[in-house]
């Protein structure tokens, strides 16, 4: 049974079309593996339980440029 978090070849092709780029057919397998490995932990997590990344800005006097 395939991993439900894995990026399928069909989904990869959809993403390529949406991004408006072209990737050679013989490299699709390599790109799918690269992205799939990177995505697995993001897809396996419940985003509502994940840490936030705020604050996006901080105001501290020492960060002013000279």
């Amino acid at each position: 049974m395939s991993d439900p978090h894995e990026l399928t070849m069909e989904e990869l092709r959809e993403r390529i079309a949406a991004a408006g780029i072209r990737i050679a057919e013989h490299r699709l397998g390599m790109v799918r593996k690269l992205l799939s490995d990177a995505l697995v932990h993001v897809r396996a997590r419940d985003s509502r339980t994940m840490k936030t990344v705020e604050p996006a800005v901080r105001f501290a006097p020492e960060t002013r440029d000279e």
Partner: protein
Amino acid sequence: MSDAIAYATIRELGARYRRRELSPVEVTRALLARIEKLDPVLRAFVTLTADRALADARAAEDALRRGDDRPLLGIPVAHKDIYLTRGIRTTGGSALLADWVPDEDATCVRRWQEAGTVLLGKLITHEFAFGIQFPGHRLPPARNPWNLDHIPGGSSSGSGAALAAGLVTGATGSDTGGSIRGPAAFCGVVGLKPTYGRSSRSGVLTLSWTLDHTGPLARTVEDCAYLVQPLAGHDPADPASSRAPVDDYVAALGGGVRGLRVGVPRNYFLDGIDPEVERAFEAALETLRGLGAEVRDVRIPSLACTHAFLLIMLAEAYAYHEGDLRAHPELYGDVLRERLQAGALVTGAEYVQAQRIRAEICAETAEVLRTVDVLASPTTPRPATPFALAHDPEFGFPRSNMPPFNITGSPTLALPCGFSAAGLPLSLQLSGRPFEEATVLRAGHAYEQATAWHTRRPPV
């Protein structure tokens, strides 16, 4: 030329210069001859700057005669070829920039120049610090001096190879997912990835803004301490540059590790590692214990999600390269082009989720570093990869022990801790709290002084 000169430390060279036993011009001429002899096989250099090196060496001699006591005076160095050098070709290891001559220096280049170093040239990098050059590339990859059939690591490949072969005394590297520490590990030398914001990125080609670090490689921890000193400190040209106070890194080396708390995050870092690497690592821990360090296991559970860092790197790299990829795809190396294009396929939501995972890893690591002073791990799960494997497009990005500290931005040192049965170097990784480079260097120096791994030389 004797190995004693080729492999001399910064302290040794400085002492001999000041005793008038040796001059920077003599050392520079000797290294240029050694490069001419060895580099056609090793391919560490992209550009040799012999005239510039001799001019720098003469200037250093004049300064020495005036009693100038700067420790890096007359020390021969070279820069990874993603550091911009005014008037000197800067290729980024890419056909896209193969003939580009910048009109400015990177901040790090300027700071080493102002410290009195001698610039021998530019060192090959994996293309745009990301993808190894495949056969047929205009700029072929460097080879590992310990075994020419193996990669020297990357992306600071020329830096690692040149140091191991005794072609330079110091080199710059950059580290987005391990590109300083990997070549240091595979080539049996020392690499320091300073804290994010400690050493300027200004004038260094970008791979990933939030993960890129600059720093030195050398053959000893002390040499790394000397070399990072002028790089550390605020640079208004780098928006990530910190104003945190800069320690005296060389002065801090002598403190030893008695009472130092060393944490070993076995989860993730020891998962699936080569048995030879594990044995060398356990022996290194035993050495640290013998020196008086308190070694204990710690846990950082979120490290299991480390590979999500690739989403950040791919998306940011694509943002940087998008225009050139669309305009000149043929000038990107085979395979690298598609890896960069993969960044176009990361959604905004996935990038944000990866940053949230990053925030968890940062928080858990910071919590653990409240209970220990440094974290110890094997730098790489296995010794240097053969070219035959690295040149397989499906090889991809295997799990690595180095990205966790690009994620956290922590200061991290890689140093030799043994050799495999096949004679390839093995490496110990030590990571500390932000801006505590001095602690990491002190621990590494104590270990290095108690062992002799750093004194072995490759069969070049």
